[in-house]
């Protein structure tokens, strides 16, 4: 199982989701992608996409407008 981290501070739409999609393609089932985000709408679009595509998600708020979203490739 591998874990990759993608820091997306300051990245604006639609790049966060596009970068996550391409990072997830490179992972195998069960691998984890840790996404660091500072924009709430990106958290929503990425988790909605992940849930719709069979990936598990774990979310943690790490600061004022900062989140750590873990995607587990399904």
């Amino acid at each position, binding site marked *: 199982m591998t874990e990759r981290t993608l820091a997306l*501070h*300051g*990245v*604006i*739409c*639609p*790049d966060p*989701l*596009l*970068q996550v*999609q*391409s990072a997830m393609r490179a992972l195998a089932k069960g691998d984890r992608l840790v996404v660091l985000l*500072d*924009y*709430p*709408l990106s*958290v*929503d*679009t990425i*988790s*909605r*996409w992940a*849930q*719709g595509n069979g990936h598990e998600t774990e*979310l943690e*708020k790490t*600061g*004022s*407008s*900062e989140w750590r979203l873990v995607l587990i490739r399904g």
Partner: protein
Amino acid sequence: MTLQIALGLPMGLLFGIVLQRGRFCMNTAFREVMVSRDVALFQAYLVAVVVQSVLIQLGASLGLLEMSLIPFYWRAAVVGGLIFGMGMTLAGGCTTGTWYRVGEGMIGSFVALVGFGLSASATRWGLLRPLGLAVRGSTPLEIGGEVPTLANLLNVNPWVIIGLVAAGVAVWVLRRPGKPSLFGWSWGKTGLLIGLLAAAAWYISGLTGRHYGFSITGPTANMVNFAIAREPVSLSWAVFVVLAIPFGAFAAAKWSGEFAWRAPSPKKFPQQFVGGILMGFGAVTAGGCNIGHGLTGLSAFAVSSLVATVFTILGVWTGTYVFFVRRARGT
């Protein structure tokens, strides 16, 4: 101007709060339908249009408000809508999206807003005006001397249109509802509240003698030109609504732990600035933006607003594909 200020600022504050908590960005709404088949924000938008259309039709029949609509210059709606939509993708937000993000501390959106305000004003009064008018043409299309609406175009009662649209939207959102936001408001709540506010906007704005609902582009152009050239000589209700949006969004972001000063990498600034310029030119040429046409005019089923909104959506899809998706896939 006291009445405009007293009635405008509270509406703008409320609008800003709802926009921020609902994350109501129409660039995202239109884009994600294509990119990730995520329909949540698009459904919020449609709910808002339906709620507003029912209430303003009711208000008009009770004599509470008057509906004046945006004239239909077909080329303006098509070309302006496309340019506006493509600009939105580069700017990183629609007009309301850009205004409320300023309140969340997004410096990139502030840069986009400066470009948008300058070019909207330049298209209305300045250097870009001849170009905008050339795109628009000089004769609006009318039906029996009136601004075309779906109702007078199809020669049916407006309630027939409202009924059909409401039924269509209801079936879709109930059968295939979008996923909720994780910690913001659900699309249903957001759509309902935006629809209620937008309907109230028609009535409240009417009290100041302005017979239209929410709009963003005209007021933004007005405030820039007023600051620089004192033209127009007085400011409308809508200007104060728009000015208050970032403050409402700031309060909402602050109390929900979502405020932070954020800036994209430096190379994004020119992109967002150019996006703002395209938005200003496109929206003024089209006669409205995602709010003046997309939210307000569409709820009155003006043909100008329908055509401009359809082409704005096509512009967003084109811009998203050409500027972002293609590049991300490296093709």
